[in-house]
């Protein structure tokens, strides 16, 4: 089997600029692991076990802040539920791939990887596979390295800087950049507002209540818009 180097190069060239916005996430994950008190290696292993920035930040921040483990896991899973959409959209393309690729491919299916691979959906199966693996493995390697860097820098950062607040700022950025119409703004505001009102619930369970009501509010707003 020969590897088409031009396709590999294309995958790498396309993936590199898309990794730039992910750098602060990977870096902050490393910092938050240090602050959370979770063992650094265990925390860092989330980078290859989960391989998803928002879910990693959610899980580690919540575990570190004393939330119930079940609530932290649930929140991490809910954050990543959007991947169901990616999986459904790419399923027809993957039907032409060999078995191993259908098992391995989803592991690399982060947001950026989805955006890139959808543009190559009409490629022949071998070209698609080469491209997908080139960009995906590059994202994966950079992610592991960058989050490890945050881990190294973490202990040097004074606690008084309150770097865990960076997670909230990053999440705010994700919301703002993801809003393409007002029902999403409503979902975010209602999610935040309900969590505020239910903050007194034990184990930060208000987070799940807020998330659920926010999703409901966004769905209703979308219905009304149509």
């Amino acid at each position: 089997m020969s590897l088409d180097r031009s396709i590999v190069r294309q995958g790498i060239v396309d993936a590199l600029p898309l990794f730039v916005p992910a750098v602060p996430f990977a870096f902050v994950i490393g910092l938050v692991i240090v602050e959370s008190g979770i063992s650094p290696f265990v925390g860092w292993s989330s980078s290859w076990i989960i391989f998803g920035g928002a879910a990693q930040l959610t899980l580690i921040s919540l575990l570190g802040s004393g939330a119930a483990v079940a609530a932290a896991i649930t929140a991490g899973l809910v954050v990543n539920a959007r991947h169901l959409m990616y999986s459904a959209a790419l399923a027809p393309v993957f039907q032409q791939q060999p078995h191993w690729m259908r098992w391995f491919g989803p592991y690399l299916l982060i947001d950026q990887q989805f955006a890139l691979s959808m543009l190559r959906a009409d490629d022949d199966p071998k070209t698609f596979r080469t491209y997908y693996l080139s960009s995906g493995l590059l994202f994966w390697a950079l992610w592991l390295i960058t989050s490890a860097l945050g881990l190294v820098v973490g202990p040097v950062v004074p606690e008084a800087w309150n770097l865990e607040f960076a997670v909230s700022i990053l999440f705010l950025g994700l919301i703002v950049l993801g809003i393409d119409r007002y029902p999403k703004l409503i979902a975010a505001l209602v999610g935040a507002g309900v969590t505020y009102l239910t903050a007194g619930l034990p184990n930060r369970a208000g987070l799940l209540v807020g998330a659920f009501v926010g999703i409901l509010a966004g769905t209703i707003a979308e219905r009304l818009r149509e």
Partner: protein
Amino acid sequence: MTDFLAIVAVGIGTYLSRGIFILALANKKIPDPVLVSLQFVAPAVLGALIVALLIDSGGNVAIGIPEVSAFLVGGAVAYRTRSHIFTLIAGMGVFWLVRALM
């Protein structure tokens, strides 16, 4: 150990959410109402998380002028620049500055 198991649990769930249609349900489609709601998962959960991460051990939301200033400036910078890096720098910069001034 608990932390590691929690990571593994989220890892398995994440893999399944990425793989389920590719591996098992290639001929199935997500029903339209579910697809509509899925779009609101990210903004709703992230909005809820921003508040939840500020809850202190007493169950109160520890949000003051530094946090609110940082959210307003960070949100505006995110909107204008579409850049996570600038958002992070602006948000944390304002947070530290306002806190130092108070």
